[in-house]
């Protein structure tokens, strides 16, 4: 599901001006939302307050309220740890597995390498949503099943990336030299290959968190993810749908939040890439 966007070093442009600081600011805000929702959110995200049902944005409710009179802003704040948390978990888990798989494949003999990469290919054509539908139905709807199904289709991207890097690095003169000097494959891997690969993967992980977030919310939107009344962002959008004509704020703010978060991660990923290239 994730896509190789490996740019050539020389062609990377560094994000300029205020964009990067802005992206970092978004990140700080998100971290605060995740770690200290109680301090930031002005209202209870779960308790019903029917008198305030579907009220437009105001000073008390800056993002308005939902069909239960709950503060949309508070729900978004509390939802960060679900939406973003799951996205991060998916990306980390797939990166970890993908790196190991890719490294093994890259270092292995050609026959095994071929087979391992063929298995990776299998996952690329598999429609993510179909898998998610099936997983959700078999182990129940919830963020855990979303995490599982997305991780299953996410890791092959890392495996392929890492294998490519390993193959490239193996041919480097200093690695060849080390090998000629009788340094063991394990040591070569540890000293000369893994450190470089990790840098490459870092860039990818950062950008992917944004994409994973979008994917998580998509599954929740289809009703495969979080369950009510969890304030997960995709679920907020799903729940807001019947009220769109009467309460635009209920749909607009969670969507904007997803968009901002994903863009911030992309920008930071870009910055990391350009720092590596410099």
């Amino acid at each position, binding site marked *: 599901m994730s896509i190789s966007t490996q740019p050539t070093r020389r062609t990377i442009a560094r994000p300029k001006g205020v964009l990067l600081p802005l992206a970092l600011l978004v990140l700080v805000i998100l971290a605060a939302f995740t770690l200290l929702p109680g301090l930031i959110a002005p209202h209870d995200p779960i308790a*019903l307050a*029917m008198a305030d049902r579907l009220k437009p944005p105001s000073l008390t409710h800056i993002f308005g309220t939902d*069909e239960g009179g709950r503060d949309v802003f508070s729900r978004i704040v509390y939802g960060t740890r679900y939406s973003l948390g799951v996205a991060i978990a998916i990306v980390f888990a797939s990166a970890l597995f993908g790196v190991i798989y890719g490294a093994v494949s890259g270092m292995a003999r050609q026959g095994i390498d071929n087979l391992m990469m063929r298995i990776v290919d299998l996952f690329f054509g598999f429609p993510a949503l179909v898998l998610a539908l099936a997983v959700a139905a078999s182990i129940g709807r*919830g963020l855990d099943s979303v995490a599982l199904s997305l991780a299953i289709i996410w890791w092959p991207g890392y495996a392929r990336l890492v294998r490519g890097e390993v193959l490239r690095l193996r041919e480097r003169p200093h690695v060849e030299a080390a090998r000629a000097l009788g340094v063991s494959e394990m040591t070569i891997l540890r000293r000369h290959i893994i450190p470089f690969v990790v840098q490459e993967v870092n860039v990818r992980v950062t950008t992917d968190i944004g994409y994973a977030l979008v994917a998580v919310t998509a599954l929740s939107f289809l009703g495969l993810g979080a369950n*009510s*009344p969890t304030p997960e962002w995709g679920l907020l959008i799903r729940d807001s749908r019947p*009220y769109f004509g*009467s309460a635009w704020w209920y749909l607009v703010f969670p969507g904007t939040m997803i968009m901002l978060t994903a863009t911030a991660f992309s920008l930071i990923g870009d910055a990391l890439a350009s720092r590596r290239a410099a």
Partner: protein
Amino acid sequence: MKLRNGILGLALGLLMGGVSYSAFADDASTFVYADAGEPSTIDPAKANVNWEFTVTRNIYDRLVDFDLDDPSKLLPALATEWKQDGKVWTFKLRDGVTFHDGTAFDANDVKATLDRLLKIGQGQSYLVDDIASVTVVDPKTVKIETKAPTVFLASNLSRIEMLSDEDIAKHKDDLGQAWFNENANGTGPYEFVSWTRGTQIELKRNDKWWGKFPEKPFDRVLDRFVTDGANRARGLEGGEFDLANFVPLDEALRIGTSSGFHLVEGNNLWAWPAIYLNMDLAPTNNKDFREALVKAFDYNAMVQSFQGKAEVGRGPVPSWFPGSPEKEEVEIKTDLDGAKAALAKSGLANAKMKCSVPAGFPEFRFAATVLQSSAQQLGVTVEIEEQPFVEAITAIKSDRSNCFVLGNANLSPSDATKFFSAHYLKGGFYNSGKFFDQTLQDLVAKLPTISDAAERGKLLKQAADIVVNSHYIIWTARPKTVVPEPDRIGGYRIDPAEYINARFWEMYSK
């Protein structure tokens, strides 16, 4: 080579085509109905959901009709007269009625239809499953004998569509199941034209229909499948559709009060949304625990979520229903102290339970959310899982869930026993929490045999009380049905015995 042929074809098509085909038809007399789903079948013996009834109801006729304003009053349709004599009902059939293919309608059609319906055993057959035999007396007279005397047979037949015995005979091998699934030949006000899968079913007006159309009826009806409620609302408001099924309530109220629209309101819902508690699975198998939930439930929150267009029910039978005991029932309201006492009695403080909610209805989800928030005040944790309908009802039936949210109407216009059988008797499809009470079973069996209406009312109250006192169901609120109708059209009426249905033959343009 292929590519060149293709281009050649395109060019030829451009040159020669356009003669027979024109996209832009006169659409003044076309009525577009946005239905919430695509039928799985249009066989009247199997039709089960609103979007299947939309088609069957308009293509076929029934023996009797009923007055939408007073469901206890029956009106002539394919039958002009009927009478009950113990177990035997006799129907006199209308003269000069023909099917869309030109064949005449007679008593053989009635017999073939009912025999087939009961043999297939699906769809609305449960409404007439007390029929023992159907006899053709003469082409215009049919005799129906029931297993036990029932006063409701004619009324229940107002939901049973009549097919042609020639069609049934022609497709004998599988009882015509394959053919009737996607073909239709009725006597009704509209004729089946085509079914574009995934998109729409097209009907055209039957100008030879025996009934009466209003002035300026619609000659062509497009039944569109628009699965998303927000899209139905948006399309209705934007003028793409003339009427829509299941418009979310907030949108319906907003659209119906905006300029160019008016609201059609009606009472009709029996249990909407009702929370069914599992009688077999802890902690809901404990009666005191159920009582605690019923008393803790915040009914006002529900009424507010319906913007006040709802009342709190006092039991299963809504007050407008013929012979309803509702007025004599005790009011149901939130009583937190009572709830706490009941919970203490149950000894199930801090219990956890799971609730399965059929996806797609914001009202159902909200009812579960209210239950969750109310139960929390007692220290009881409710976990909600929204699932497709089949999965959700399977979860509670197989004891993987404690509760299930369901909204339903009684399709029979005046027979409450059919609703009770499906919802509260052993083996009933909607009896998802597996409620069982022998006295209730006996009462429901006895009720149709009694000819005195006052006596029936008494039994109905007893039956309702058994369900209420068991705390099997939380009747969260009974909203009004609200349908926004564009000012450019008229004629829409709410069927009290069903959530939303469209009688296209009553619709007209202004």
